[in-house]
């Protein structure tokens, strides 16, 4: 009997170990026994101490987080093709950690009873399992297929601790050494053969000096010494030594202080004990995988969207670390936005390669909404648009089609790394958001001159655009046009201002916080709609009325306004501060619950946090009054 679904399952499994070791008929037979399970984001597959299920699991789509319930940090993240929950079944013990859907996921549940015979009959499969269980490493086969069969990790080998500074560095234990009278040309030969940048000079097993590439350059290549000179003549002595559990910060400081690139690790940290290893600048770079500079480099080198998805996860770790360390919000949002921008840029570059031809004309990829305002710390929905150069009437359709096709690939790429599709379809792949310069000009003119509720909403999203990729000049021309048009139709400010005042108030008559009355988010506080949006909207209308270009960020806008209007300086600075505080609130909540952080459960906040939150409400009220008076909103029917 034909079974299309089991073929589909087998077709997926055959790409991943150990299933790639099974022959086709057996794999098909196994596939017929599988149950396909859908897991909503956040729902558990099994909990710690649950008795073992009859199945183990393979991730088909999505991602599953494994963690111990008493620890905050995740032990491992399984994505497509990874196996989890097998070891407890083999060992007949309870689950040692919980597994929860990190994102919406589809799993294949494989019955252990049906799988066991293969593990026993097929030596390769058995060996694979033993190797995975025994080595506490990842998948012994390859890093890309890091399907892990064991569950408990004694010590995660590359911990994702955001506070990398206090972590110890791995040093190289392979010592390349020579004695003080070895000729320098032999030293250089040995260094080349071993592909190292430094050589230790030992005397009675104690380190007495070090020769690096730089010493060879400075002393030999310059002709200061002949190449047969003894090592002791050019070595740097004494050697800077450290104990083996040196932290990243210590190592960096030591290298900076003496302007050197290598440290020697000895048994007790002094030059009087045996040398056991060498630590280079490169080792530090590797250890600092979570460093923004390293991440940017990794992004620009990424060849596949899948790689970017992994990097995106590191960005979230970095963000969590910054918040924990109380790094100023201005800096945090700058760095994270840069990284997010780099990801998007890279996706556009990769997508462009997928197109059959080069873009027919110049174009600009505009990020709108929070991404455009550089306030998007967590991944939310994507809001974007394409703006391309004017083309002759007869080419317009073909050009538009090219960019729509490109946008479709980009939107899918962004979706793949975690940006949900915009529920309102405000994406460049929608024909309404992919236009030539003239078309966009006509469109915004229409919004500005006929400001109904929809037009005001659209402009409030669109006018925060920022160039993520492509030609700046095009965006510049469009901005000029917007300012010109708004100045000719000042009534537009009034509408925009009244739109800014329409957000629901954060507090009620008795100054209590207003919570959502019904729906899924009942009894939570909507920090986006009730607190952040009033500030964002206010900043937008004010900055627009001053015709200030390219200041998109809400708290930067307020700082700029404070500069422009010294008499309202205090209010604006308070607004800037409130925005940062609220943004931080939202981001922290979002990281905690793996969501957008928009809805805050008030009763879970500490007293201090509640007071902090409430303090921002007064500021919101002040700015709303200012706007109401300035733009005479009361004249308009609200």
């Amino acid at each position, binding site marked *: 009997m034909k079974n299309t*679904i089991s073929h589909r399952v087998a077709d997926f499994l055959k790409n991943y170990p150990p299933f790639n070791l099974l022959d086709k008929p057996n794999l098909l037979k196994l596939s017929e026994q599988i149950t396909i*399970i859908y897991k909503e984001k956040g729902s558990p597959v099994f909990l710690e101490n649950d008795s073992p299920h009859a199945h183990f699991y393979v991730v088909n789509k999505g991602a599953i987080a494994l963690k111990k319930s008493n620890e905050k940090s995740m032990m491992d993240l399984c994505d497509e093709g990874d196996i989890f929950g097998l070891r407890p079944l083999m060992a007949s013990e309870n689950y040692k950690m919980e597994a929860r859907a990190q994102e919406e996921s589809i799993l294949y*549940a494989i019955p252990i009873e049906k799988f066991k015979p293969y593990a026993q009959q097929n030596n390769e499969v058995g060996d694979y399992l033993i190797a995975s269980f025994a080595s506490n490493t990842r998948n012994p086969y390859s890093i890309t297929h890091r399907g892990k069969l064991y569950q408990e990790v004694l010590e995660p080998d590359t911990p994702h601790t955001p506070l990398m500074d206090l972590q110890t560095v791995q040093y190289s234990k392979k010592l390349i050494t020579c004695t003080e009278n070895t000729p320098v040309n032999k030293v250089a030969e040995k260094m080349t053969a071993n592909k190292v940048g430094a050589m230790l000079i030992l005397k009675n097993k104690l380190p007495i000096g070090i020769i690096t590439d730089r010493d060879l350059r400075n002393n030999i290549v310059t002709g200061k010494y002949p190449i047969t000179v003894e090592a002791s003549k050019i070595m740097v002595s004494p050697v800077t030594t450290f104990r083996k559990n040196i932290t990243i910060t210590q190592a960096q400081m030591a290298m900076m202080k003496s302007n050197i690139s290598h440290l020697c690790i000895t048994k007790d940290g002094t030059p009087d004990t045996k040398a056991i290893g060498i630590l280079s600048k490169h080792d530090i770079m590797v250890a600092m995988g979570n460093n923004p500079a390293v991440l940017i480099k990794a992004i620009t080198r990424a060849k596949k969207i899948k790689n970017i998805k992994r990097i995106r996860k590191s960005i979230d770790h970095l963000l969590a670390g910054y918040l924990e360390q109380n790094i100023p919000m201005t800096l945090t949002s700058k760095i994270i936005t840069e990284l997010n921008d780099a990801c998007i840029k890279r996706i556009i570059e990769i997508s462009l390669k997928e197109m059959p031809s080069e873009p027919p004309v110049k174009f600009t990829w505009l990020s709108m909404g929070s991404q455009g305002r550089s306030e998007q710390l967590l991944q939310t929905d994507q809001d974007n648009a394409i703006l391309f150069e004017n083309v002759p009437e007869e080419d317009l359709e073909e050009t538009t089609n090219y960019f729509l096709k490109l946008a479709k690939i980009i939107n899918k790429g962004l979706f793949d790394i975690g940006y949900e599709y915009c529920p309102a379809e405000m994406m460049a792949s929608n024909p309404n958001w992919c236009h030539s310069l003239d078309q966009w000009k006509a469109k915004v003119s229409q919004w500005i001159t006929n400001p109904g509720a929809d037009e005001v909403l*659209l402009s409030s999203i669109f006018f925060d655009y920022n160039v993520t990729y492509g030609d700046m000049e095009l965006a510049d021309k469009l901005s000029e046009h917007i300012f010109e048009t708004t100045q000719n139709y000042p009534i537009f400010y009034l509408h925009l201002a009244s739109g800014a005042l329409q957000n629901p108030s954060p507090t009620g008559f008795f100054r209590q916080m207003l919570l959502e009355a019904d729906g899924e988010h009942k009894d939570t506080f909507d920090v986006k709609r009730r607190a952040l949006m009033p500030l964002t909207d206010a900043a937008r209308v004010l900055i627009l009325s001053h015709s200030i270009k390219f200041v998109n960020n809400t708290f930067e806008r307020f700082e700029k306004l404070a500069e422009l209007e010294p008499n309202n300086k205090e209010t604006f600075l308070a607004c800037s501060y409130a925005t940062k505080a609220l943004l931080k609130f939202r981001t922290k909540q979002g990281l905690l619950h793996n969501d957008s952080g928009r809805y805050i459960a008030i009763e879970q906040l500490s007293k201090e946090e509640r007071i902090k939150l409430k303090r921002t409400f007064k500021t919101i009220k002040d700015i709303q009054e200012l706007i109401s008076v300035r733009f005479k909103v009361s004249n308009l029917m609200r």
Partner: protein
Amino acid sequence: MINFFKRKPKQYPLYWEEYEKCFEQKQPAELKDVRFVVLDTETTGFDYVHDRILSIGALTLKDKMIEVSNNLELYLEQEHFNADSIKIHGILKSEAIFRISEEEALQQLLAYLQNAVIIAHHATFDLNMINKALERNGLPKLKNLAIDTSNLYKHTLLTTNLVKKKEHYSLDELADKFDISKKDRHTAMGDAYITAIAFLKIKSRLKEKESLKLKDLVKMG
């Protein structure tokens, strides 16, 4: 003498009576206990009268799980043949797949369906095709509740005048939207699988709005 005027209740074959009997049982109160059958039919064309069912793919969905071993994939013997539609589903009249008669297929389908809630993309079409086949075999219409994923999907979209909802959303659009691989598209079982995953994803997005009951789903779909 034969009494022409006395109307005897029509006698249906045993398999229909067994099917009918399943409906004496009420649907469970909890959504997770409800048995859904996701199905798709490939047909020779879109004409309810002249076109025929070529194949039926159906799988069972319960508590967000699909058992691969428990599904129904039927290929039907053909009299009527429409050369145009082969291009789409690729089922040739003489292809060497085990085929059964229309009645045999209906019999197996009814036994598989029981009182499950049917889910299909553009459900009206599939149900009409099946009901026509039932009619040809002297049987009444299907009695199952049915949900159309095309209609259900519309409820996940924002209600705003900025987005124009389309009248229909194709299965391809849903597969793109929900990132479902379009492998085996245009085979009955392949489409049934895509529909099943799309249904699960739609349902989870609807749940964000309210605590969902079966009757809500049926009303929306």
